């Protein structure tokens, strides 16, 4: 566990966009958020979005890295590249250690299955063995407080109950390299405090944490390193304090620029 690491070498990710007519893309080409949109191919017929551009960095055991940035800056794409969901278009990702991506709390959740059935099937997709899941069930039962409901189809759950079910499973894993998207939400207030403790306990069990968030407060409380992403590039990587300061500075600059320049009139369509 001491020698886990992730190393990115010149990682670039391009997304091909299929099935969009050129017309509908005209407005998007002028957009200010998101990756760079280009055209490729002999007749410029292929539309490609550059989501990440030549990223290189290395994180090691003990690192808790926070990814800051606006919508479409590339945070989620970067997390997915680290998770091995997307192989980079160019460059390499070298990883040592077991990856635990937690982008949705329960991948493969099925509404018609019972709580227990979902724990079993989602747990396997999260990389747990049957035996591991069986061992964890008592503590998950205790944490989620769903009682008899666990034997009913999750279709019958309220939104809060669903959150409890998923969260109990998601935080039961023993991660090496934990990749977290901020969307892992929590339920009611009393539950939130317990959820936070449980989340913290899982993070403490991990060797490396990478967390994507818009919230600098969340990153400040959980991370010891941060990276600011903008249009698929890392603008700054370093101590959380410096990165959040730059994040606010640039956000303020953009607000001023937007206020100064008249907003481009939206074409009525």
């Amino acid at each position: 566990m001491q020698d886990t690491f992730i190393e990115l070498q010149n990682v670039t990710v391009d997304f091909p966009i299929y099935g969009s007519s050129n017309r509908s893309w005209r407005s998007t080409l002028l957009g200010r958020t998101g990756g760079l949109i280009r055209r490729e191919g002999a007749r410029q017929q292929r539309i490609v979005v550059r989501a990440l551009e030549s990223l290189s960095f290395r994180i090691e055991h003990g690192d808790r890295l926070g990814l800051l940035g606006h919508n479409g800056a590339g945070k989620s794409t970067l997390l997915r590249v680290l998770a091995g969901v997307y192989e980079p278009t160019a460059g390499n990702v070298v990883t040592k250690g077991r990856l635990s991506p937690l982008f949705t709390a329960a991948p493969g959740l099925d509404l018609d299955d019972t709580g227990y059935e979902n724990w079993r099937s989602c747990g396997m997709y999260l990389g747990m063995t049957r035996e591991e899941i069986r061992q964890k069930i008592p503590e998950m039962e205790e944490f989620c407080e769903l009682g008899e409901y666990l034997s009913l189809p999750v279709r019958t759950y309220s939104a809060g109950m669903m959150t409890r079910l998923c969260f109990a499973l998601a935080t039961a894993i023993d991660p090496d390299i934990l990749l977290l998207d901020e969307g892992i939400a929590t339920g009611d207030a009393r539950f939130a405090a317990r959820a936070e403790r449980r989340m913290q306990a899982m993070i403490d069990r991990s060797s490396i944490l990478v967390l994507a968030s818009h919230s600098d407060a969340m990153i400040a409380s959980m991370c010891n390193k941060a990276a600011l992403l903008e249009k698929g590039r890392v603008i700054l990587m370093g101590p959380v304090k410096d990165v959040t300061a730059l994040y606010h500075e640039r956000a303020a600059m953009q607000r001023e620029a937007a206020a100064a320049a008249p907003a481009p009139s939206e074409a009525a369509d």
Partner: protein
Amino acid sequence: MTPDYAGAFSDIVRGVTNWRVWGQAGWQEIKRRYRRTALGPFWVTLSLGIFATAMGLIWAPLFNADVKTYLPFVTVGMVSWVYVTSTISEGCGTYTGAEGLIKQLNFPYMLLNCTVVWRNMIVFFHNLIIVIAVVVLLSVPVNLNTLLVVPGVLLVAVNGMWITMLLGMLSARFRDIPPLVGNLIQVMMFVTPVFWFANQLGPGRQHIVTFNFLFHVVDIVRSPLLGQAPAALSYAVAIGGAVVGWTVTVMIYARFRRRIAYWL
């Protein structure tokens, strides 16, 4: 794209050997499909049984065939046909249907192919009930040839795996493939001898059957269930198809496996 054979092989091996996961996933999907129905998966069995019986009774006189030979032939033929072709048509959705998982996790995609093939095999086992009914009621011979159904079913599964990989990739990239495949299967149901006997074509047109891959893979399941030994040619085609199909598919898989997530 530079081919990544190591990655492709590792994906295939890890996927196939992790039978606990695809075994569980296949069962779970069957359970899901028929939740809150009284008959469950036997709905497929029942409708297939009714269909085959009706066809058998009405078409037997049309073809001047004896009901006692024609009805088992159609029934067993349909059960085998459905096993082969539903694996193929469901194979188109292997990756598009698992978009949620593929975009969230890094796992051997081969698990998905195994799930599709296994699920269809489970449905086939349900449908064997009709076959047993027909065998008992119409005294279809049961002999050593019957045992050949085991290699037959397995050969279909081995072919099913490369077909679901290939069609799954094509369908993820080109969304016209699933309706096209659905259409072709419908046409092939009448081109392939399922409702008629191959020898009814006459000696001059046997090539229509001989060159039909589907006929051979269906027949290695059908003939044993009728107490007959399938033709050696059918085994040759099924095995040859598996070898050629797997080779071509692995070459494509090595090149494009890493692009699947981008296509979804």
